[in-house]
């Protein structure tokens, strides 16, 4: 009842870039999240070229040194620089999580859209398949997949993607389902669109805002999952720098007081997950046309 009429002047937020700037300015938390994301992306792209030491080079003379000006995060048991390894690992960890999330996003959206739009037996069959996946303890399922397919980066990605598919499919199914009989879907049919086009062009994009929240939570979760797999030895093989393995290896030295081996990769892992979790609201606002005022 308090609907105010939109004013007639065009605003800066009308362009996509202007809108992104507006969303960032509007919410300092989003700004922080995007700044941290930029930092991690920077590490992923330029890290290997900028780090002070070769992440794989051993130096027995300076093994297990505490953090110092030479080695910010200290050195590990064979004298490798922990700081360089943590930074270099960013690329691998982000690749795994982004690829896994992208894969599950695409497959989950497709399956969910089909189930939500056409319903009927297709919906029933797809849902029971997804239920089956969700019935497994997800981490155990991922372990099983990697154990069966082999210890490679691709297989970690596939495993992480598979266990995430049901969440996307469920979400999209619900979002599509509530819109399949909406006026704009019917109007699109009258305008000569086939069912598939109505679904892909008109209905699906409207489910993006909640999907973005899911994506951001999932990115963090996928990093944890990949690190977890590596931690139990079912992931990336040493000596490749990866946060999970580094925490796993460093854990052996905590008892003897060399805390920096596990703490710094763990801290980076935490920061990355934190960043992605904070990102959600901002991403949602960016893809939501209603936020453009």
């Amino acid at each position, binding site marked *: *009842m*308090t*609907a*105010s*009429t*939109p004013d*007639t002047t*065009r605003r800066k937020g*009308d362009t996509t870039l202007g809108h992104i700037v507006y969303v960032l300015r*509007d919410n300092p938390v989003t700004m922080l999240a995007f700044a941290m994301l930029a930092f991690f992306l920077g590490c992923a792209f330029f890290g290997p070229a900028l780090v002070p030491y070769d992440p794989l080079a051993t130096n027995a003379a300076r093994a297990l040194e505490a953090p110092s000006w030479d080695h910010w995060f200290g050195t590990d048991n064979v004298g490798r620089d922990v700081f360089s390894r943590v930074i270099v690992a960013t690329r691998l960890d982000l690749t795994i999580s982004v690829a896994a999330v992208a894969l599950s996003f695409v497959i989950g959206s497709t399956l969910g859209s089909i189930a939500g739009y056409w319903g009927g037996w297709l919906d029933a069959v797809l849902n029971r398949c997804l239920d089956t996946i969700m019935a497994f303890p997800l981490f155990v399922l991922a372990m099983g997949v990697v154990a069966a397919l082999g210890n490679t980066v691709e297989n970690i990605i596939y495993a992480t993607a598979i266990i995430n598919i049901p969440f996307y499919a469920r979400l999209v199914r619900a979002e599509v389902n509530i819109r399949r009989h*909406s*006026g*704009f879907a*019917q*109007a*699109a*049919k*009258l*305008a*000569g*669109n*086939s*069912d598939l086009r109505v679904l892909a062009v*008109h209905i699906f*994009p*409207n489910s993006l805002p909640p999907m973005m929240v899911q994506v951001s939570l999932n990115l963090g979760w996928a990093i944890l999952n990949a690190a977890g797999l590596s931690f139990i030895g079912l992931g990336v093989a040493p000596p490749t720098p990866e946060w999970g393995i580094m925490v796993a290896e460093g854990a052996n030295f905590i008892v003897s007081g060399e805390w920096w081996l596990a703490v710094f990769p763990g801290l980076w892992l935490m920061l990355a997950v934190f960043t992605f979790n904070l990102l959600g609201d901002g991403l949602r606002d960016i893809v939501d*046309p*209603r936020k*453009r*005022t």
Partner: protein
Amino acid sequence: MLSIKDLSVAFKTRKGEVNAVRGISLDVAKGKTLGIVGESGSGKSVTSYALMRILDAGGEIRTGDVVYGGTDLRAASEKDMRDIRGREISMIFQNPRAALNPIRRVGHQVEDVLIRHAQATRQDAKAKAIAALEAVKINDAAARYDAYPFELSGGMCQRIVIAIALACKPQLLIADEPTTGLDITTQKAVMDLVGDLARERGMGMILITHDLGLASQYCDRIVVMKDGLIVEEGDPQKLFTDPQHAYTRKLVDATPRVGASIRNLLPPEARSAEPAHIVHDRPLLEVRDLLKTYPGKSGPVQAVKSVSFQIKSGQSLGLVGESGSGKSTTSEMVVRLQDPTSGNILFDGQDIAATPSARFMRHPMRGEIQMVFQDATDSLNPRGTAASAIAEPLARIARMRGSKLNTRVAELAELVGLPQPLLSRFPHQLSGGQKARVGIARAIALEPKLLILDEPTAALDVSIQAIVLNLLVDLRAQMGMSYLFVSHDLNVVRLLCDEVLVMKQGEIVDRGPTAAVMDNPSHAYTRSLIEAAPQPPNPVAA
């Protein structure tokens, strides 16, 4: 009993502060009904929320006094307000289904209020709740006590809401658009019920509505609000016959009523001669024995039972009925969004029902039959601009591209009176009337021969409705289109249609030329529909 003096309410929003109510004063006397009439955004609901102190977050009473029976409601503590709400002042809301808890039995919801205000104990709550349901004339109240809201019709739900509101015998009832979304006969039943109860109990009432006709029938006094101000106040009869303020005059003019032509709805300075439309003798659409059955829980449900009618080229046919009459199903089958169970739809002599709706988008006739949807907001993709909505049929069916497409979109916007700068806006940045124009522009983009209008003005304010109806009349004359106008509002159908069909429970019960059916209804159901429609007093100087 209630006295509001110089009340101002402001809301903090992202675009700065909005003054929703700007210094209004009004009084409600015991046992009297005050109508607050205004269009959306006029601040009429905010006024009632402010006096109940249930404003949304960000809303704040800036100045003014609200005194109820000697109590200053602005200064009252939240605890006192909780006692006043429900027991002294009660409210009924617009959407009865949303106002009821969907997972609790309605009887329990009535009990909650009684127990909360110490009007009943656990032991006698049930008996008192049933008595409260009986008071709002619910048949077989003892059985309805156990019903869930979804098992009841809209009108029945509104009765429950009224029962809850009146359970504690409040002294003042605020009814915020209590009948919006209800059928016209249900509207009459609900309003008569509320009016009778108010009279019986000597209860004061504030009726908030956008419908001046409705207010004039049930109120002792009416205030007209616009942009947070009261522009006029007075006796309903006098307001209609001799409106003082220009805005009141505009509202009175725009309210459809017997004896007014469609141009009379517009302000005097905008009235041009009504363009004539030519009806040819050739039938454009012939519907034969159309039947639609849905599988239901207890056997198949016949939504449309063997309906036949025809529309001549250039003719406008009104399809009237209440919810559940099958009028929407019929129109969706004609526009080929649904498949009939059996029957033929001959369009220009060709049976278009032979092509299933799922494949009809490639049918050469697709562009010839278009539709304007009921809810303009719902019918526009929230992610698309106005221009993209209008361009869609042109690009998909007429295969227009590039500058040719843009020119045509601009042309159409011009035709429906949509300012060009608005074309790049998203639906949520447009007003209701602007969205309706976008929907109409999209529907006429391909110059269809038949346009199906599914209550195109149901969600619009009366002054916007007047403009949109006149636009439709102009377009009809300009483009020689035939209309199938689906509506529950007989006053509107009367203005626009040559012939009318009255549907009830899937069957056509009455048909004929509009004037004949309206002035001389042969069927009892048509008569009840006409009688239920609020008849505003006719302005003398129209």
